[in-house]
């Protein structure tokens, strides 16, 4: 991971095992905040419409290429971001819900999940065909360079990513748990029948959840693509990380997704430093299996009624 590598070098420059650990934690929180963001979108879709979106990673990868496409066509960066966001709302929000989820939902949870797996294959192949199979650089929204914090050099990018992602995560959490809108959405998710009776526009809430997810993935794309580069296959790792974050934190809670995301980010970065390079990717997976073994509802999740 580029971010972790850079942090590690910075740590060595300043010496000391403690400062190294601190740097790793900062870098871990930065990637973790992005994972949390993507995981929130993931849990939103699960809660409001029982959609296990196996294409969530590709949902982050696609907007990056939409923006790159707009930039290749001559649009300035801000316009490209706007175009990417609008296209993402149409394709990954509205289109995904109306063309895939709505017709598939009546067949049940698993066929829908399998359909999203096919979708992830389709998105990857489409990007490979229409854009490029190579990795492309992506402009960063945060300027390069380091800032001095408590006598330690911290890269502006990792700091910026962390701040933006955390602000977004806190904002989302506030939106979903503090406002009337959020309560309506939770009601629609938890008990659609009763929600309808007390006058919650359930259908509109579900659509809004998909649109929010579409905006979340655009923001995540803006934050993560400058670090990992834009590549058709880059959604796989991110999707898996967000996925694990959602399960570790608790599949049915936004707070869980946040905690899970930050935890996976930190674990990921610590593993990069202290576990052999070959097996660092295994650490989050083992964490996932351990959670399913010992705390299947996730760290902060509620226990769901067991469906046999």
């Amino acid at each position: 991971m580029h971010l972790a590598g850079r942090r590690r070098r910075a740590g060595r420059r300043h010496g000391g095992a403690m400062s190294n650990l601190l740097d790793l934690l900062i870098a871990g929180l930065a990637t973790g905040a992005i994972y949390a963001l993507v995981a929130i979108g993931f849990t939103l879709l699960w809660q409001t419409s029982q959609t296990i979106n196996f294409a969530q990673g590709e949902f982050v990868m696609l907007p990056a290429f939409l923006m790159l496409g707009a930039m290749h066509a001559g649009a300035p960066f801000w316009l490209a971001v706007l175009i990417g966001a609008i296209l993402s709302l149409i394709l990954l929000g509205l289109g995904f819900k109306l063309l895939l989820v709505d017709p598939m939902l009546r067949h049940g949870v698993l066929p829908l999940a399998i359909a999203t797996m096919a979708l992830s294959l389709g998105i990857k192949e489409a990007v490979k065909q229409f854009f490029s199979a190579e990795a492309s650089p992506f402009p960063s929204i945060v300027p390069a360079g380091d800032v001095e914090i408590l006598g330690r050099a911290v890269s502006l990018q990792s700091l910026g990513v962390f701040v933006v992602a955390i602000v977004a995560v806190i904002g989302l959490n506030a939106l979903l748990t503090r406002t009337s809108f959020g309560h309506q959405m939770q009601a629609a998710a938890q008990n659609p029948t009763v929600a309808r009776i007390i006058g919650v526009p359930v259908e509109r809430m579900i659509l809004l959840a998909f649109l929010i997810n579409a905006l979340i993935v655009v923001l995540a794309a803006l934050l993560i693509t400058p670090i990992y580069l834009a590549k058709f296959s880059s959604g796989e790792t991110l999707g898996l990380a967000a996925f694990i974050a959602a399960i570790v934190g608790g599949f049915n809670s936004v707070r869980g997704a946040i905690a899970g995301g930050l935890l996976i980010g930190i674990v990921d970065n610590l593993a990069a430093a202290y576990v052999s390079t070959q097996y660092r990717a295994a650490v989050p997976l083992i964490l996932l299996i351990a959670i399913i073994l010992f705390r299947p509802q996730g760290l902060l999740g509620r226990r769901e009624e067991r469906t046999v």
Partner: protein
Amino acid sequence: MTRTGRLLGLAVGALVLAALIVVPMGFNRYGLYILSQWAVMSIAAMGLNLTLGYAGQVSLAQGAFVGIGAYTAAIMTTHGLPLIVALAVAIALCLAIGWLLGYPALRVQHHYLAFVTLAFSTLAFLVFRNEEWLTKGIYGISAIPRPVIFGFATSRPLPFYYVCLSSLALVSLAMWWLIRSPWGRAFMALRENPIRALSLGIDTRRYTLIAFALGSALGGVAGTLYAPLTQFVDPTPFTLSLSLDLLLMVIVGGAGFFFGPFLGAMIAVLLPEWLRITEGYYLMLYAVAVILLLIYSPTGILGILDRVLAARRTKAASARRQAAQATL
């Protein structure tokens, strides 16, 4: 099914089998390779069909089990052990791992097996790539011998194709017997109505676990054939995408139908060969086609066929009823 229907089915089956034996005699090396691959993938898909189609669980680790089987065969046969011993070891290994994976996952909720197998798939790939002392890592294991069966060397493509085909036939027979056994009926009962199955005294969790473990073992069987087929095993084929491919094979052919995996494997293995003109667009079109198929018929192509046949049968039955009423 009526008697004539059963006879017709048997005749068609015999005809297809005869064609599969006779026609490939004129095939070149590559054609035989593709057809052997179809047989191997059919076995793996049949195992997944047991898990997905009959017991209603999503496994994303079938590719990893094929990998485990392939590495078992590769390591053991290159050390001079016969393939049949490797087969037994692979089956035992995959059964045990399947059991260990399924046991905790099925305690929770049905979709958790998908998550656990997803993680396992990635872990297995890491082990294949990194444990160089065992798997030779990214360099792979080459010069895997093909077996000698009853004194016949099967090193040439045609005899080895027959090895694959007869394995497929044996597995099919075993599966045919299994889904008609009390176990198979229990599998179907818990797919159709788990709560009712539970109240009828079927230990749903245990039977789901059995289905998953047996399905995984068939992945191992496919792997033990895959290694001598390609005669070279490295980690690249056994990523998550193989598991996904196998899953889509089962879905496209028709999950829960006996012949679904055969059809699905045919579409996934043979169709790309025929559709070379579409080049890179093939997988994209395939993905779109799978989604459309899933929306229209979540039970795949055979599901559509089944629906058409059922509609015709009802029509015929109501026509008969009307005729009977008219004579009254």
